[in-house]
């Protein structure tokens, strides 16, 4: 009898609990719904739509609907001379930008991690460009820093340092246009990466350094054997973020060089933009957007593999 009652009670409790659980789930979905609607409508649905478009031929101005052509769109993009030029230019940008980004931001983070008075001022200055829009950065550098006659850089080189022969039109000279874009991008992004490294540095226990000092390690050895191995997670993050910024290069050439001189700064992202919004070839543009996705994915995986940890 007693056992019987206990059973009944338990069953009742289960039922009540599950009813409460159902109400809890409905409430949770009600909380999520408005945000999810936005994400579905303007991100997930577009993701699928452009994926489908990438297998079609679709001139937005003349065609009523996209025509399915399968992988032909991708072949067309890959064989396009301008795609190949922009792939080469993006590789040039990435090979210059990425290593410098990592090295400079690590260096600045090490500086910021020292017990120097006034270091918060340095931190704020380094971080300042991060909050300025890329468009405004481009306008500022093209108009006031890198321009030939009235730019600050030529003024400092020519009149302050006495290096008149170094002055030039930085953005219209095919040899310096891409390096200039790389430099401006570094100026803009280094502060963000430095903060990520700084967080990693501050998480390294002081005791590790003390132990290394006891063992007689000098500053350089401490950097190589204590600091760098303990920054693994920061390297993963900095790497992923840096890879994305190395590949999706758009505002810098769009605003500062318009892809010139002689297509020397036409990047993959810019190429995608031109296909979509100058030629209205939505199929081709979607295909090249997905090729950019693919590149980012591949390099992110390589980065994750290289900075993987030995978790026990």
């Amino acid at each position: 009898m007693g056992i019987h009652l206990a059973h009944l009670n338990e069953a009742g409790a289960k039922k009540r609990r599950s009813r409460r659980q159902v109400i809890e789930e409905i409430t949770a979905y009600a909380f999520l719904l408005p945000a999810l609607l936005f994400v579905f409508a303007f991100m997930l649905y577009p993701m699928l739509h452009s994926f489908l478009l990438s297998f079609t031929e679709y001139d937005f101005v003349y065609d009523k609907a996209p025509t399915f052509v399968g992988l032909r769109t991708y072949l067309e993009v890959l064989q396009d001379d301008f795609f190949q030029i922009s792939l080469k230019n993006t590789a040039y940008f990435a090979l210059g930008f990425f290593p410098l980004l990592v090295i400079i931001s690590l260096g600045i983070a090490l500086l910021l991690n020292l017990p120097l008075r006034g270091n918060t001022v340095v931190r704020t200055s380094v971080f300042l460009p991060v909050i300025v829009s890329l468009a405004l950065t481009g306008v500022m550098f093209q108009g006031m820093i890198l321009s030939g006659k009235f730019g600050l850089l030529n003024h400092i080189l020519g009149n302050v340092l006495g290096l008149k022969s170094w002055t030039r039109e930085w953005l219209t000279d095919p040899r310096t246009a891409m390096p200039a874009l790389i430099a401006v991008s570094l100026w803009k992004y280094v502060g963000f990466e430095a903060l990520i490294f700084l967080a990693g540095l501050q998480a390294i226990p002081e005791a590790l350094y003390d132990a290394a000092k006891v063992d007689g390690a000098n500053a350089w050895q401490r950097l190589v054997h204590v600091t760098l191995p303990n920054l693994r997670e920061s390297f993963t993050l900095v790497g992923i973020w840096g890879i994305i910024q190395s590949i999706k290069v758009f505002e810098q050439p769009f605003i500062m060089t318009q892809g010139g001189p002689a297509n020397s700064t036409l990047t993959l992202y810019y190429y995608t933009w031109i296909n979509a919004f100058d030629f209205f070839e939505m199929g081709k543009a979607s295909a090249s957007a997905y090729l950019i996705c693919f590149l980012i994915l591949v390099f992110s995986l390589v980065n994750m593999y290289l900075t993987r940890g030995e978790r026990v």
Partner: protein
Amino acid sequence: MQQATILKWVNQVILYFLAVFVSLIFVAPFIWVVFTSLKSDSEIFHVPITIFPQHIVFTQYEHVLREMSEFAIYFANTVIVSVVSLVIVLVLSSLAGYAFGCMSFRGNQLLLTLVLLVLTIPYAVYLIPVFILENRLNLVDTRLGLILPYTALNLPLAIFIMRGTFRNIPSELEDAALIDGASRLQIWYRVMMPIAMPGVATTGIFTFVMVWSEFMFARALMLSRNAYTLPIGITFLQSEAQSWNFGVLAAAIVLTLLPVLIVFIILQRFLVKGIMEGALKG
């Protein structure tokens, strides 16, 4: 002993020089723009160039504010789009972040993974279909046409930050309120939101900085001058400035920068904290 102190001292001096040099590289362009905006035209085009303004004048600012009516339109568009998107993002991400962080429901992990997945996709993938969609719905050239995608683009990161914020709040408070018979909505609004304010500040500054400076969507979706936001408008001012006026351009840059700068100065610690804590969590 003596030698060691001297060496240490020299070391310090070198480090300070390095610190000043690094700061200057990042700040000098801003200072240059501010100085240029305070010079008269004759001084700007005077050769050789002077770095410090010899006579401070505000004629460039006057010109922007009085004679360039389009600048006021760009500014108003940017403020409206930014503020509306910001408010929607904050409310929706707090609701969703609370559900992800504090409530148990089926599909939690799957939905969170989806939300995080869209964070890594380059915007171009979204922009092309959104452009087609907005052309069909006649949203091109309207503020709503920017507010909707801006809200969506900022939600994933905002939800992620708010989820972390709510998870870090000890559950005792929430449990006590639940036992008292409060509804989830009441708990969210009365108990949790007041404690989650630092997270809201972090989310807010990330969103504001992004929306205030977004370029690609605005460039593709806003086609008439009356619909431009500042990042678009300023690039057109610049192409005019090449044959025209550096001083006005400098003043316009300073005015565009000012709102973000003010928000940044007030909320700086939340931004820095947000990046560094995010980094620590991996």
